[in-house]
């Protein structure tokens, strides 16, 4: 069974309304409805609160729903999935610092100006491409 159906069933068993659950875990009633209809997925903190409220284990709530696991992995393992993006951001920051530190030296030589602008355009574009890849 998917997590939305499990949440709805658990709430019904407890005899709670969407409003009371929403009030209890401090989200809107629409959010509860979206979770139950699987229009969106709860984050890990909300899942823990819901498992406490409904007296069902996290095991029962999460197991067997691949999409939910995928969602949790995507939202929690940010370091691994964003490695290239982080590298691109770091490279851009490094280049900006470099340009600021050596601007007096760079400005005296046309080739250095050209090299700096090339590096600037390329590194910004790589960063933008990494952001596009995240869509």
């Amino acid at each position, binding site marked *: 069974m998917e997590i939305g159906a499990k949440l709805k069933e658990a709430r019904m068993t407890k005899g709670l309304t969407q409003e009371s659950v929403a009030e209890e875990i401090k989200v809107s009633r629409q959010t509860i409805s979206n979770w139950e209809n*699987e*229009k969106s997925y709860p984050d890990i903190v909300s899942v823990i609160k819901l498992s406490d409220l409904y007296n069902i284990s996290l095991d029962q709530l999460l197991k067997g729903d691949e*999409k939910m696991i995928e969602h949790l992995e995507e939202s929690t393992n940010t370091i691994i999935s964003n490695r290239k993006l982080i590298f691109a951001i770091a490279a851009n920051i490094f280049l900006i610092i470099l340009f600021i530190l050596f601007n007096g030296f760079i400005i005296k030589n046309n080739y250095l100006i050209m090299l700096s602008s090339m590096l600037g*355009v*390329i590194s910004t574009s790589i960063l*933008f*491409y990494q952001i*596009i890849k995240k*869509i």
Partner: protein
Amino acid sequence: MIVFAVILVFILLMGAFTLMYQVFKLVTMDAESRGLKHPKFWGVFSMGGNNGVGGLLLYLIGRKKYVSNMSDANKEIFNSRKRRAGISLCFFVFGAIGLFAIMIFGNI
């Protein structure tokens, strides 16, 4: 030299406009697959922002709670659009670097 500059401006603008279009289409498809209301609005929103990517970043942060239910056929189109966005970006880079070169070494 002026002819080269005009060609490079054309390449740069072509790259920029096709890139914007691809970003718009990508975000619209993504928003549709996540069941967000007004996907075209999100497409337009993502093209804006005061530094070029502000809107896109806000969209990427905001969409986190919504899971994508994109079909395999749409995923293929989606990935091909990402590749096209990469090609557009290459045109943009080529145009921009060429214009820098003309401005620095040319007589414009």
